[in-house]
């Protein structure tokens, strides 16, 4: 239980508009609402992502779903530069892995993409909180971060591997 009790501001040399400070019932400095919201979602997403990654890897190595690149042939490919690997295996870049989820190796990309997407979800969760608190600059920075991460995730940026 962290009942927040406002306390007096600490005078600061250069702080013009300091952040409001509050404390928990135990007298400790309270953590901001958006920071806690971010932490809770990150915690949940990280656990689900790591569990998913472990389960899909078990499916992969157990051979329950046949991999796109046979396990015994992997050592022929992992020493190649990525462009040669893609050309040799006929694998396409971007989100094409979604079409290959029936294969054990590409099933792992569900967990990898989930872990790589958790941060975007966290930013989306805190943006409304920041705007509600009229923290406009950070609200817009959060939106900019979502745009940057979404652009990276979009698959639009590539180095001409295909």
């Amino acid at each position, binding site marked *: 239980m962290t009942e927040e009790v406002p306390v007096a501001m600490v005078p600061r040399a250069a702080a013009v508009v300091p952040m409001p400070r509050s404390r928990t019932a135990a007298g400790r400095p309270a953590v901001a609402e958006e920071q806690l919201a971010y932490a809770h979602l*990150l915690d949940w997403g990280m656990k689900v992502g790591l569990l998913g990654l472990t389960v899909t890897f078990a499916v992969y190595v157990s051979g329950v779903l046949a991999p796109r690149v046979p396990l015994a042939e992997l050592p022929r490919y992992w020493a190649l530069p990525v462009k040669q*690997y893609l050309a040799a295996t006929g694998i396409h870049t971007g989100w094409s892995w979604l079409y290959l989820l029936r294969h054990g190796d590409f099933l792992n990309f569900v967990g990898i*993409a989930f872990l790589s997407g958790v941060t975007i979800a966290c930013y989306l969760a805190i943006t409304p909180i920041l705007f509600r608190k009229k923290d406009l600059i*950070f609200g817009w920075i959060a939106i900019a971060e979502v745009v940057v991460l979404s652009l990276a995730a979009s698959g639009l940026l590539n180095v*001409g591997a295909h």
Partner: protein
Amino acid sequence: MSRSVLPAWTGIVLAVALTTGVAYAAGAAPAEAGTSALPWWAWPAILFLVTFALGIVAVLGGVGGGVLFVPIIGGFFPFHIDFVRGAGLLVALAGALAAGPGLLKKGLADLRLAIPVALIASTCAIVGALVGLALPTRVVQTALGASILGIVALMLVAKKSEYPEVPRADHLSTALRISGIYHEPTSGRDVDWKIHRTPLGLATFVLIGVMAGMFGLGAGWANVPVLNLMMGAPLKVSVATSKFLLSITDTSAAWIYVNNGAVLPMLVVPSIIGIMLGSIVGVRILARTKPAAIRTMVIVLLLFASVRALLKGLAIWN
């Protein structure tokens, strides 16, 4: 007690060296021929053992797993550096995601400090990742070796300041209201902090982001000195915010590697599991170790790996 721990410690480092040596011996020649002297399953098994040891070393040495992973795995395993960098980013990302929630909830990592820094670092990490994947392998290896040497130099010369003196917050951090307070359990008091030199610090994260994306190293080795020594955040806040920051910076770069095909689950998953289990063990024995001795060993390990990367890049030792 530390006398009894040190030999065990040395054993861990020797285990890393021995296993990577075996990996190199078994993998160096076949890497060119496109076949392996070992069955396919031996590689993820060796990778798991090495990353488990690296996880322990990373925690005890106070460095991120990514900075050890890329030069060591890239230098002594038969995997191409493209896939090693992709795996390195995901290893650093997984570690940051695991540590982030606790650090945020305790108020040690500061979201307000991280958000502006993360926007710059993550944008530049995309650029770094794109450039890194476009460059010839030898150029990347050489640049990686040189960068690791630079990191070693930074580790040797950079001092840390528990509570840096910040006489006056600068205008930008004041306008952005970047300041905070956290409870320090060792002293039982609340630590009020603010930062300065924010424009310079933010500009430095341009370079940090590019390097993180280009080499897949994670970036704790650079984040902490900049946040702590340059911007004046307390050491605990700097370390915690740096760790959390990696979850954002590495996310953007990781997507570039995923979308360009440079991620092999067979490298990524054993590495993530190995390094995370190693970190758990490392945390348990952290209290019984001599930090200075461990740090020296980490520096020696990094020096060796950087020379290996340089020589590989310069085609002297393939």
